């Protein structure tokens, strides 16, 4: 627009010189510069979003707190303790032989999130059921690990928030939760110490 006006005002009729279209392929130099400039500015603008977005992700210190050691020597069969891993509760439970056989009795194919107790524990340590104490529905802490808490109709855990019921392998059996209680990554550093994370 602007250079057209100039062209007209000066009375020349040699637009080929003034509109900057040089090449035989018909690409105007001005268009090229426009597209190049806007693209570079656009890429630059988008690059600024990277730190703006990633500053929201868990920071280094939060990630650094990501492993916990637990002494399990004091947990008798049938008992459980609550520990903390990544600021969230972990249930460490010493299953009784009855609880183990109850978990093994269930046909795996009938489960919402099919898994055997063996898949959810370490080989030779099937009695140590270690799971996050975080309901897979919306994240409440289920009852059943503490002394005297209700364990729900399948003898495992019961979430009071919206009524999810877990069995003795902490697998979801009833209610809105989609998944079994999550098994965090862990290893036995000795017979009495577990390292979670």
């Amino acid at each position, binding site marked *: 627009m602007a250079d057209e006006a100039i062209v007209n005002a000066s009375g020349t009729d040699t637009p080929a010189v003034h509109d900057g279209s040089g090449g035989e392929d018909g690409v105007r130099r001005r268009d090229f510069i426009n597209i190049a400039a806007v693209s570079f500015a656009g890429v630059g603008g988008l690059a600024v979003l990277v730190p703006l977005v990633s500053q929201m*992700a*868990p920071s280094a210190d*939060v990630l650094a707190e990501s492993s916990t050691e637990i002494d399990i020597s004091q947990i008798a069969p049938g008992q459980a303790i609550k520990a903390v891993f*990544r*600021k969230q509760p972990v249930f460490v439970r010493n299953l009784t032989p009855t609880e183990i056989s109850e978990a093994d009795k269930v046909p795996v194919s009938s489960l919402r999130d099919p898994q055997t107790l063996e898949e959810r524990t370490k080989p030779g340590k099937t009695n140590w059921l270690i799971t996050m104490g*975080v309901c897979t529905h919306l*994240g409440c*802490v289920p009852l059943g690990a503490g002394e005297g808490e209700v364990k729900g109709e399948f003898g495992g855990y019961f979430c009071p928030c919206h009524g999810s019921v877990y069995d003795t392998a902490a697998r979801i059996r009833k209610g*809105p939760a989609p998944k079994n209680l999550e098994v965090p990554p862990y290893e036995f550093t000795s017979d009495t110490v577990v390292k979670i994370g």
Partner: protein
Amino acid sequence: MSFPWAKEYKPSHPLMQWLDEKLPLPRFVYNAVGAGYPVPRNLNYMWNFGILAGVCLMLQIVTGVVLAMHYAANSGVAFDSVEHIMRDVNWGWMLRYAHANGASAFFVVVYIHIFRGFFYSSYKPPREMIWLLGVTIFLLMMATAFMGYVLPWGQMSFWGAKVITGLFSAIPVVGTPLQQWLLGGFAPDNAALNRFFSLHFLLPFVILGVVILHIWALHIPGSSNPTGVEVKSESDTVPFHPYYTAKDGFGLGVFAILYCTMLFFLPNALGHPDNYIQANPLSTPAHIVPEWYFWPFYAILRAFTADFLFIPAKLMGVLAMFSAILVWFFLPWLDTSPVRSGHYRPLFRKFFYLLVIDVLVLGYCGGSPAETKYVLISQIAATYYFLHFLVILPIVASIEKPAPLPFSITQAVLGKDDQTAPAA
């Protein structure tokens, strides 16, 4: 932008004339809420709630900024700093109760404002943009109130934050990383509290910006009115000032009495005692519910208990909850009846009242524990809620025979209008 008979701003004082030349702010006010803004003469008290919502926003901003001078957004001390506000800061108890109850008052006012829109179909052309901006404001308000409720870092604050951000974990694939990104951790903690405070401070000003757009859009066609008949001539209108400044002023007085009654005599009636217990990440309160203004939507969330085709129940609930508000965005195109006001739509009116009852039932269920009977009622009520907007409204619009409309607002008010053709 206004009607041709709108009075023009003519400052007589030289100072005001000088100001009008340099920055015509008084002119702007005069044309927006002064004698220069002609408004339908028949507005009833339902048209009071827009101004009241503006007053509530100001109330929240003023009390909020003051609270922020004493509050500390750190998970180690946040709870104590709120107790410090309650016990030690001069008038702190009042400012905090004013802010907490102000949020409730704001939602009462805005819900009435929205249902006014439903009844008088204020969303219909030419006012669609006003409506769309209004729904946007409502969404922003919900986000603001949710984050504000987290700040005192009590048990309800913490578990509310956990459960609501948990909603995002329902989204396939990106859900859990998204939730961790929102929280800046694996569970709500200092990072989450800090960013919620920052956003809780910011969002009300964003709301203020959208409110300005909302009113700008309103001033193009002007207000609708209880008959839904558009303004035709000067006799249909009165100047905003003094007529509606006075009427709105009276409404504001009534509002202030009710608000102060809550503030001074029942300050905790709408709160939860559990929020006076400091956040404990290892123990969930037995009965967690959001604040009352979220109940209808919370009931819809919990109504989905079984998987639907390949969509898991949890995701369905989340989608339904958000859709319950998003469906409002489509209202101008779902309700195709040319008649606006519910007064002249006998069939529509019945369904309007059913919707009100339905939302109250949802609200009741949303505030109750997740027992089978409430879940069942929520399922029925949630189904009806969506039926109302997606099926009933379009059908009613096409089969209903509306009652005859008055010729003009003047005729509706005075029984006659000199402008009317010979018939009158």
